[in-house]
């Protein structure tokens, strides 16, 4: 809800509600074609093709995860070998100190653990989460975005952003209603 005391409230952007995934996707595509850059689409579930429609490039996450995994392998192997061979070599069951075979299971587990943690933390990082407040939360209807509503926003900072015109454009795309969002 916008309860901004300032006479000249700062603008976050405009938001338009759409009927369903298709129309949202359609609108997004159209908006992009119309040259809008700073768009974002909101839906209760992932809509296939939306990433392309929004012009999001491939995520760096897989590489981060690979890195995390390798880090796990390195740490586990190096650590265990150091302990078994250098730090405190103990004769256990007559096994050679430097034997690799018994170290594999743990190496694998640590690899997976690190990779998984990277995946989650990385995702949060890329999504700027956690972020407990956001201008959009001020908008009453926005709550339905996690239920059955589909929204498209255009940032005020978008170079092609012209309040009236943009609102008109969105309405033309079938966005009803189209509202302005204060920051």
């Amino acid at each position: 809800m916008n309860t901004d005391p300032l006479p000249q409230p700062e603008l976050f952007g405009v938001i338009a509600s759409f009927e369903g995934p298709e129309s949202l996707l359609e609108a997004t595509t159209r908006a992009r074609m119309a040259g809008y850059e700073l768009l974002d689409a909101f839906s209760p579930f992932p809509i296939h093709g939306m990433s392309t429609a929004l012009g999001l490039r491939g995520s760096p996450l897989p590489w981060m995860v690979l890195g995390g995994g390798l880090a796990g392998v390195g740490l586990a192997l190096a650590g265990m070998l150091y302990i078994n061979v250098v730090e405190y070599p103990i004769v256990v069951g007559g096994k050679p100190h430097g034997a690799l075979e018994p170290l594999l299971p743990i190496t694998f587990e640590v690899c997976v653990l690190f990779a998984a943690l990277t995946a989650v933390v990385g995702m949060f990082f890329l999504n700027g989460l956690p972020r407990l407040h956001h201008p959009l939360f001020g908008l009453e209807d926005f709550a339905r975005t996690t239920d059955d509503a589909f929204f498209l926003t255009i940032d005020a900072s978008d170079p092609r952003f012209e309040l009236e015109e943009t609102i008109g454009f969105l309405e033309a795309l079938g966005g009803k209603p189209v509202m302005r969002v204060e920051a």
Partner: protein
Amino acid sequence: MNQPIVEPLLDGQQDRHSRVLEGQDYHRLTEQICGIVERPVPRWWWPAFLTSLTTASGALFAAAYLISTGVGVWGENQPVGWAFDITNFVFWVGIGHAGTLISAILFLLRQKWRTSINRFAEAMTLFAVACAGVYPLIHVGRVWMAWFLAPVPNANAIWPNFRSPLLWDVFAVSTYATVSLLFWYVGMIPDLASLRDRAVTRPRQVIYGILALGWRGSGQHWHHYEIAYLLLAGLATPLVVSVHTIVSFDFATSVIPGWHTTIFPPYFVAGAIFSGFAMVLTLMIPARELFGLKDLVTDQHLDKMAKVLLATSLMVGYAYGVELFTAWYSVNLYERFAFQNRLFGPLAWGYAIMVLCNVAFPQLLWLQRVRGSVWALFVISILVNVGMWFERFVIIVGSLERDFLPSSWGQFIPTWVDLLQMVGVFGLFSTLMLLFLRFLPMVALSEVKATLPTRPSDFKAGYAVDEREHVASRVKEVRVS
């Protein structure tokens, strides 16, 4: 030019209409699932919860007695150093496999039907792993030193022995628990957001608000989210296989006849999936009745799970057969005796139960009629749980009772503490399950929504073709234009 393309898409009426499936649409779905959490508790919940809690406190008491008095309060002895403790540990870890399996592997295999049950199964996984974790912790003689198992120098500046399968266990199970938790939580974030947005009372707003981490369902969120979820699924899949493999190493890498068996890793993993699916059925069948989710968790789901059960039962049965063959074929005195003893020894009755419940009864699932009958499935799934418990018991206790030197053969007799501990942990499990049903969305909302069809033409056996492919095709057309 683009008019004709856009035309049908812009026809809201048709959209609205088409989004209805068997009386199901996004909003009603949300209502249904979140409603469970928001409506006042059903009449049966409190009695059920209090009963579970009481039972669980039994486990607490048994453990306290054990820790304050000594492991001797259990029936274990020379030569049976492990009995109920590790049996139940393996039992619970096994059950803990279904969740991640359903979520991860079926996800990778694009099995849409999983979406109705994966959240539930994942929760079950977590709680099962929690229950499993209880045993390795309390079964040690000096619990207050259990931290010596952690990968840090212990009180004597000695590191743990990384060559020990038991330490592999520690790593495997803790990793599995962590990853399952992440997987579960990440999958739940959008639904937690739904709960947040529907919350009316302040506490709910705060708690769900924090749990949802400010999820807004933006396209960018979904973009990274889907990749992360995919990666997690990809990581969880080998993990789930590795966990029970490593659990089986506890036995496979030992020297005891009946334990030292190369077939154990695949055999244990199959067994784990088997018991896991059985437990999902055992819990899902009453749950869908109680919460009226028949239209989400349909008979089709039960049928599919029954088939998985049948398949894994066959794998397990095959393993039983191969074990015996190898023992006979190896001409190894001790190996042969171990399996003679399994078949005809003091625990022969346990072996019989295990074969009947795990191999014989599940064969009924070949029959459409049996798969169709909820009750039959329920009974069979319980029998399978029993059978799988006895499999572990027979392997662990039976092999230890009679190994190499007949002079040191012994017998295991459980005490009341053993039994109380076991029953109590079941209580712990149901307590956690009930809490989950009460406070968290038991069906993956966003995922189910994503699978809802949008056009009458998409109706297929009550299910949609991949909604995403459908929309994608539209987009291509748009591009072309």
